[in-house]
């Protein structure tokens, strides 16, 4: 069965420093993977998606993620954190039969001034 593990429940960085949010997936086949962001009291917003076209995926707001099959990882990065990046981030896998999304537990990103 498809599963997603986010390795950190909470990440704290200073404004202007790099961001790394880690995600590992478990799948018997090449998955479709996504990162979503959830700001307080707001809906989930798609940051980026991987669908096997390219291993390095660029998303909105300067985020990108690299799919590494050998490590079964799909870590999210950003070179320089901004205060507005503080939110909950979810790594998500696409389950092929019905296309339902399987969410990780989430990582809270805190950005300090």
């Amino acid at each position, binding site marked *: 069965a498809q599963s997603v593990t986010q390795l950190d429940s909470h990440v704290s960085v200073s404004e202007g420093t790099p961001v790394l949010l880690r995600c590992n997936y478990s799948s018997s086949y090449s998955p479709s993977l996504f990162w979503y962001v959830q700001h307080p009291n707001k809906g989930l917003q798609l940051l980026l998606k991987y669908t096997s076209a390219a291993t390095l995926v660029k998303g909105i707001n300067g985020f990108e993620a690299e799919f590494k099959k050998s490590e079964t990882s799909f870590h999210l990065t950003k070179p320089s954190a901004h205060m507005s990046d503080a939110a909950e981030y979810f790594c998500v896998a696409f389950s092929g039969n*019905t296309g339902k999304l399987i969410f990780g537990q989430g990582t809270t990103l805190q950005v300090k001034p």
Partner: protein
Amino acid sequence: GAGVSQSPRYKVAKRGQDVALRCDPISGHVSLFWYQQALGQGPEFLTYFQNEAQLDKSGLPSDRFFAERPEGSVSTLKIQRTQQEDSAVYLCASRQGVNSPLHFGNGTRLTVT
């Protein structure tokens, strides 16, 4: 409409009451999903519709939960005899096709007292 709309935004119910949560998907979106997000957790899949057909309801936690989408557009999630453990944010999402991204509504926060 411009996005997925959910109502009410907040709902407080006494234990034992029935509630109905509404979702208006983006016009023309074939697929509709319901998710349950408990505090501090990632969203958990409840059920999935393709047009008016409910193709997957494996995530519904009990027979007190019922969802419908009679005309293939608006959907209602009904919870009968609410319990405290039903307290969560209920998210609705829709998409145009299998390979399209999911668009989420802002959710309905249900509190059962």
